[in-house]
C-alpha cells in the first residue's frame, strides 16, 4: 500500500527533472559546439570579446542598479509609513503594487510611448537621457510587486511602532530612525527585493526594445537572429545570473532567520 504511492512520487519527480534539466543540458551542450568536431568555449570567447556585449550588458547592469535604488527609495519609506501611520491605506497600496502583474508590461510601455512622446507635456522620449529615465521608472514599476512584498514581509517581522516610539523618546530624528533603525532591520528583505529586481531587469526585452534602448535583452534577440551558437552561450550566462540572484536571496533570507533565532 505504501510502496505504490512512493513509486508514483519518484516517477513524477524523475519526469519533472527530465523536463527541467534537458533544456539546460541542451543549451550548455549547444553553446560548446562553436568549433566543428570538438567541444570548446569558442562561443563564450566570441560573446565576451564582442564590444556590443560589453556595452549592452554594462548598460543593463547600470539601469538595474538605478532601478534598485529608485525602487528602495520609493517602496521602503512608503511601506514603513503605511504600517506606522496609515494602516487603513494598506489595502490600497497593496492593490496598486499588484497592478503591474495585472496590466501586461507591453500595455504599460505602450502608455509611456503615447503619454511621454515628444509632443506631450512631459517629452521624456525626446532625449536619450529622458528615455533612460523613463526606462528606469518603467523597470521600477515592473519590480514594484516584488520589491513591495519583500520589504513588507521584512517589516512584518519587526515591531515598527514600538521601535519607532522608543527611538523617538530618546530624541532620534526621522532620518535617524529610518537609516539607523528600520533599514538595518529589514536589510535582508531589501536585498531579496533588490536581487529579484536585478534578475528581472537584466534580460528584459519589451520595454528596452520599444523604448529603443541599447540594453542586453534586445542584444540577445539580435544575436538569436544572426548567430548560431552564441545565443546558447548567452542563455547559459543569463541562467547563471538568475541562479546567482536567487542564491543570494536564499542566503539573505536564511541569514535573517538566523538573526531572529539569536534574539
Amino acid at each position, binding site marked *: 500500500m505504501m510502496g505504490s504511492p512512493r513509486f508514483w512520487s519518484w516517477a513524477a519527480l524523475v519526469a519533472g527533472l527530465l523536463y527541467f534539466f534537458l533544456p539546460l543540458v541542451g543549451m550548455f551542450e549547444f553553446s560548446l559546439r562553436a568549433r566543428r568536431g570538438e567541444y570548446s568555449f569558442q562561443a563564450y570567447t566570441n560573446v565576451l570579446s564582442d564590444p556590443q556585449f560589453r556595452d549592452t550588458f554594462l548598460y543593463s547592469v547600470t539601469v538595474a542598479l538605478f532601478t534598485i535604488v529608485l525602487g528602495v527609495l520609493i517602496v521602503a519609506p512608503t511601506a514603513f509609513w503605511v504600517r506606522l501611520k496609515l494602516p487603513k491605506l494598506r489595502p490600497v497600496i497593496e492593490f496598486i503594487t499588484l497592478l503591474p502583474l495585472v496590466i501586461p508590461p507591453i500595455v504599460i510601455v505602450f502608455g509611456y510611448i503615447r503619454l511621454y512622446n515628444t509632443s506631450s507635456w512631459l517629452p521624456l522620449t525626446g532625449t536619450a537621457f529622458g528615455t533612460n529615465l523613463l526606462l528606469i521608472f518603467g523597470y521600477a514599476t515592473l519590480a514594484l510587486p516584488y520589491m513591495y512584498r519583500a520589504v513588507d514581509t521584512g517589516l512584518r517581522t519587526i515591531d515598527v511602532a514600538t521601535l519607532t516610539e522608543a527611538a523617538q523618546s530618546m530624541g532620534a530624528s526621522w532620518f535617524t530612525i529610518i537609516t539607523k533603525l528600520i533599514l538595518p532591520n529589514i536589510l535582508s528583505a531589501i536585498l531579496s527585493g533588490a536581487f529579484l529586481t536585478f534578475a528581472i531587469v537584466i534580460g528584459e526585452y519589451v520595454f528596452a526594445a*520599444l523604448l529603443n534602448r541599447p540594453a542586453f535583452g534586445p542584444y*540577445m534577440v539580435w544575436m538569436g537572429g544572426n548567430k548560431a551558437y552564441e545565443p546558447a552561450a548567452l542563455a547559459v550566462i543569463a541562467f547563471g545570473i538568475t541562479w546567482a540572484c*536567487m542564491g543570494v536571496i536564499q542566503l539573505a533570507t536564511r541569514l535573517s532567520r538566523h538573526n531572529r533565532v539569536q534574539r
Partner: protein
Amino acid sequence: MTDATLADTVAPTPQTAPAPRPRRANPLPLKWLGVAPFMIFALLFLILPTIHIVLGAFQTPEGDFTLRNLQGLGVPQVVRPFMLSIKLSLLTAGLGCLIGLVIAAAVTKGGLPGWIRDAMLTFSGVASNFAGVPLAFAFIATLGRLGLITVVLKEVFGINLAATGFNLISFLGLTLTYLYFQIPLMILIITPALDGLKREWREAAEILGASGSQYWRMVALPVLWPSLLGTFALLFANSFGAVATAMALTGSSLSIVPIILFAQIRGDVLQDPHLGYAIAFGMIVITGIANLVYIVLRTRAEKWIK
C-alpha cells in the same frame, strides 16, 4: 479616520468645535505627505499610462468618443490572435496547474526525502524567473533543428523528429516552452497550500475507511480547489501577457496578441493607431478578469491554510 477620532474626543459639545480645527488641518496632510512620493510615482508610471490607453480605446484620433475602435477588434486579423492567445494561455495554465500539482504533491506528500522538497522549491524559484529570451534559446538548443534531443534522437535512435511533424516554432513548441516557467510558478504557489492540508484530515479519512484516491478526491481536492482555480487564473494571465519568449522563439511567425500589439506599436501594421489602443484594452480586460478571479479565490483559499 481622523473624523472618527475627532468625533470621539470633541463631538459632544458643539461649543468646543472651533478648537480642534487647527489640529485637524495639520496632522492630516503631513501624514499623507509620507505616501505622496509613492502615489505620484504610481500615478505617473502606472495609472496614468494605463488610463491613457483605456481612454484611447474609446476615442477617435480627433479625441471624440467612439465605439468604432472596439468594433475594429472584430476583424479576423485581430480575432484570430486573441483566440490563439487565449488557447495558448488556457492550455499552458491547465497543463502547468496539473503537472505542477502532481510534482508538488510528490515532493511534499509522496514520502520523498525532505531535502528534495527544499531543492525543488529553490529550483522553481530560479526556473519561474528564467523566462524570456534565454529560455527560448535553451529550447532552440534542445529541440530546434540542430538541438541536442533532435540530434540524439536522429543519430542514436534513428528517429527524425521533423518527419514526425514536430516543429518547435509552432503552437505546440510554444506551449512546451511556456510550461518551463508555468510549472515552477504552480509549484511555488501550491506547495504552501499542500502544506496546509492537515495530517489529521488524512488520518480521519483513513480511520473512516477511505482509500488514498478517495481522500484526494473527497477531502484534499475540494479544500485545494480555490487555490487551484486561483493559480490557474494567475498562470493564465502570466502567459497571456508574455512577449519576449514567443518573440525570440518564433520571430513573428506565430500571431499571438502581444506580438501583434508589439508590431503595431513599432510600425503601425494595422494602419489604424487607435486599433492598437483597443487591442491593449482587450488585453487589460482579459488579464484583469483572470487576476480578479485569482485574488478572490486566494482570499477564500487562505481560510483553509490558516
